[in-house]
């Protein structure tokens, strides 16, 4: 790191960090045992929450200079916020991390692959739903055309980090471009109407995981919801916010607020923990913008995860059944630590007939997916995943249920890496619940139908 760059970063830290929040940390160390990187580095204080906060404060105070090691510590953080939940002092670590990354990345040169990733995805792909569709359309073409087989056999994928190579194998089959663009904007309930909700589709969810989104809408219908799906919504901005692209994130937040204000609903439903946790913090993101602050607060109050609304509407008391099996649940960090939703998914799973729910040890510890973490911090991510898979296997589960697309891919990746695909599967909770509901109520599987149609 050269001197000019050091100066730039240090100045950015002084400008961007919330010093009061830094002071809030009493350095009691209570957060250390909950931090996956502290554990996986064999208790390295540099890679602990307390250490990271101290580094940030050290930079602001001028006690240390920016360095590659400091940057590495901030980079290696998963942003899982497990430390936040256990902190008795209430330190908002997630926010400190965002500020720190903003300070580093607004003034730092990244490595080439990372830059390409950030550059392309952040500015050009995620913000625009149709480009996202275009990109995943390409992925679908790649999968269907046989190019995937070709690429695998000539080993092009070896050029990418290990996690990405394996990831390539577990990516779901992408629906055809035409199907993706054809979503109704207003859907009526299939039971007695109890609530009017809007559905936040999410950029990644509505492309690669479109089937899960369809399942979410179906579940909401069965649960008695009238659903609005505003067309003008866009990506939540989480990936930008978590990676030092705050200005971009704000822009996207405003667009979403406008889109959902028009819908006039009781709740705004999400089915991706990562998006949800970012959406509920729009008020914080826009706190310095007097014009938007209140509107953001109103928006935030309405955000609810699909599992939370299902439990509120007593969906778990309906008939639900699956073939006999053991099921375990991997918490989504952001759903648990950001939205404080962790009982509901378990409650729902436990109420399915023939399902034996077995809690896995450290279920709430991050799986190592963490946005694009498994690509840019491949080694640490795989180390964390290995631990996770050991715990998952201990439960003897056939199905690992998750509540976030990133976690879902990571779990699929874990299963693939361990060579367990013949005995274990990973699914999104929404897909699992829909199947359980339709199974119990003798309804022809809407998912299989849709899948068949999409692939034609």
């Amino acid at each position, binding site marked *: 790191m050269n001197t000019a760059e050091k100066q730039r970063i240090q100045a950015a830290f002084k400008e961007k960090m919330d010093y009061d929040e830094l002071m809030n940390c009493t350095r009691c160390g209570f957060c250390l045992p909950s931090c996956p990187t502290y554990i996986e580095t064999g208790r390295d204080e*540099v890679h602990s929450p307390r250490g990271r906060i101290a580094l940030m404060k050290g930079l602001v105070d001028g006690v*240390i200079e920016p360095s590659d090691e400091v940057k590495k510590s901030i980079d290696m953080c998963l942003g899982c916020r497990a430390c936040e939940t256990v902190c008795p*002092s*209430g330190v908002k670590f997630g926010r400190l991390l965002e500020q720190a990354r903003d300070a580093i990345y607004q003034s730092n040169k990244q490595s080439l692959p990372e830059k390409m990733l950030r550059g392309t995805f952040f500015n050009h792909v995620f913000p625009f739903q149709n480009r996202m569709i275009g990109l995943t359309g390409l992925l679908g073409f790649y999968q269907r055309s046989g190019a995937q087989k070709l690429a695998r056999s000539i080993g092009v994928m070896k050029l990418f980090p290990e996690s990405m190579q394996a990831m390539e194998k577990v990516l779901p089959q992408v629906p055809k471009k035409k199907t993706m663009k054809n979503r109704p904007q207003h859907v009526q309930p299939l039971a007695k109407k109890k609530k009017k909700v809007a559905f936040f589709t999410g950029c990644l969810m509505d492309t690669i995981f479109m089937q899960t989104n369809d399942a979410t809408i179906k579940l909401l219908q069965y649960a008695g919801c009238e659903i609005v799906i505003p067309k003008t919504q866009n990506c939540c901005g989480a990936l930008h916010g978590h990676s030092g692209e705050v200005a971009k994130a704000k822009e996207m937040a405003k667009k979403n607020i406008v889109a959902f204000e028009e819908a006039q609903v009781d709740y705004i439903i999400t089915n991706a923990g990562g998006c949800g946790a970012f959406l509920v913090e729009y008020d914080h993101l826009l706190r310095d913008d007097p014009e938007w602050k209140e509107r953001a607060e109103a928006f935030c109050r309405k955000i609810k995860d699909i599992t939370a609304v299902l439990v509120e509407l007593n969906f778990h008391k309906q008939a639900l059944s699956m073939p006999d099996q053991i099921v375990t649940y991997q918490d989504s960090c952001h759903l648990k630590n950001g939205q404080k939703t962790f009982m509901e998914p378990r409650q729902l799973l436990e109420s399915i007939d023939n399902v034996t729910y077995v809690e896995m040890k450290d279920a709430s510890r991050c799986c190592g997916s963490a946005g694009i973490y498994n690509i840019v911090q491949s080694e640490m991510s795989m180390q964390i995943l290995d631990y996770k898979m050991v715990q998952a296997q201990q439960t003897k589960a056939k199905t690992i249920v998750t509540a976030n697309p990133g976690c879902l891919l990571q779990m699929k990746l874990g299963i693939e890496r361990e060579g367990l695909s013949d005995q274990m599967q990973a699914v999104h909770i929404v897909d699992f619940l829909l199947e359980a509901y339709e199974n119990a109520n003798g309804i022809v599987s809407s998912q299989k139908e849709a899948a068949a149609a999409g692939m034609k």
Partner: protein
Amino acid sequence: MLAKELKAKLQDIVGAENVEDDNASLLAYSYDATARFQAMPDAMVAPRNKTEVAAIVKLCNDHRIPIIARGSGTNLCAGTTPASGGIVLTFKHMNRILEIDEENLTMTVEPGVFTKDIFDTAQEIGLFYPPDPGSMHISQIGGNISENSGGLRGLKYGVTRDYVLGLEVVLPNGEIIRTGGKLAKDVAGYDLTRLFVGSEGTLGVITEAILKLIPQPETKKTMLALYHNLDAAAETVSAIIANRIIPATLEFLDQATVKVVEDFAKIGLPTEAKAVLLIEQDGAPEVVERDAEKIVKLCKENHAFDVQIAKTDEQAEQLMTARRSALSALSRLKPTTILEDATVPRSQIPKMVKAITEIAEKYQVTICTFGHAGDGNLHPTCLTDARNTEEIALVEKAFAEIFEKAVALGGTITGEHGVGMMKLPYLHLKAGEAGIAAMQNIKKALDPNGIMNPGKMLAIAEKEKAGDLQ
């Protein structure tokens, strides 16, 4: 900065991957849980076994380099801030439980084992390791032994000291000695085990410990007594003890503390009460039942307006966990929390509580009080802001007065957190000049070059150097 050849020698001993001296590592080992103290070490070294520890200590002794043994850095006396630079030793590799001896009821551990793991491992086989400092899920046994840590069960079960049967220590000259053993009785020579317990890393490096385990109590009962004023709660503490009941836990929390703890834990604590006692009794069912009845009666006689009994084990555990978070939770109110642990004979608790309130008023500072009331160990905690130098000066005066009062009541300046750098200026109040001189002589005899955690506990003239106050 570490000289090149020294670094190379250290790398030879422990392997290159176990010596860190980049600026991030130095900063990460520059602090502990004590507010306002920070100083940079020259390197962090992680030995893998006692032989490596001995080699490091020898090298440092030859070159007069300070060694700061560090557990998890949760001490509250600036015990691990490297005030004179030097090497921070961590025990991340020396973290194994070596043996559980069910015949002699002992557990042999390396210094880096987390306290909670010792407790859990014992519990799994129906045994009990009682010392439970509030920080137990992160503190390490090496740190506990060196601070002689107490906890929520000190009243009935004693403190860490009462569970250390033997130690293996690397002395400052690099020799390895073993003290005590799996013995209920042992009078062969000076009791070095007790000397090292609570020595704050100033006399040597602990590399192994034999701990005493006891049978698990059969049952327990946990309750909360609520009061309209502090005095009544304090009087109850004295009344319970005077009635010959020794509860396992007898904790005191004032209203401000209860409020912040509830804010964090959200378990429905009674925030309307001015003071709360958290009481737990354990043992044989009939004894617990009888004691609980008596305790409830005594609480009511001493004007508790309500006594609530935990209905399930989970509820009981929630209450204990909530109490453990008290100190950190207090920092929700103000940026800086400065906490002390003046301790008095338990009969003097009402007087001490009153004195603390008066002193806080006199200096116009905010002091919340909670603590292990049953063993006379209070934690008056001052809520302040390190950036406000005027207020900090007042806080220091207030604490000095609190220490004097505690000693005047037959108490001490610190019951369990240790002296470190923070209470070094007050040690004479308790130990007296002659007492300090005796301690200095012990220190000089074992560590003539003053390399072990210099600047802590005792001021040894030539080595003295204040930490960088922030």
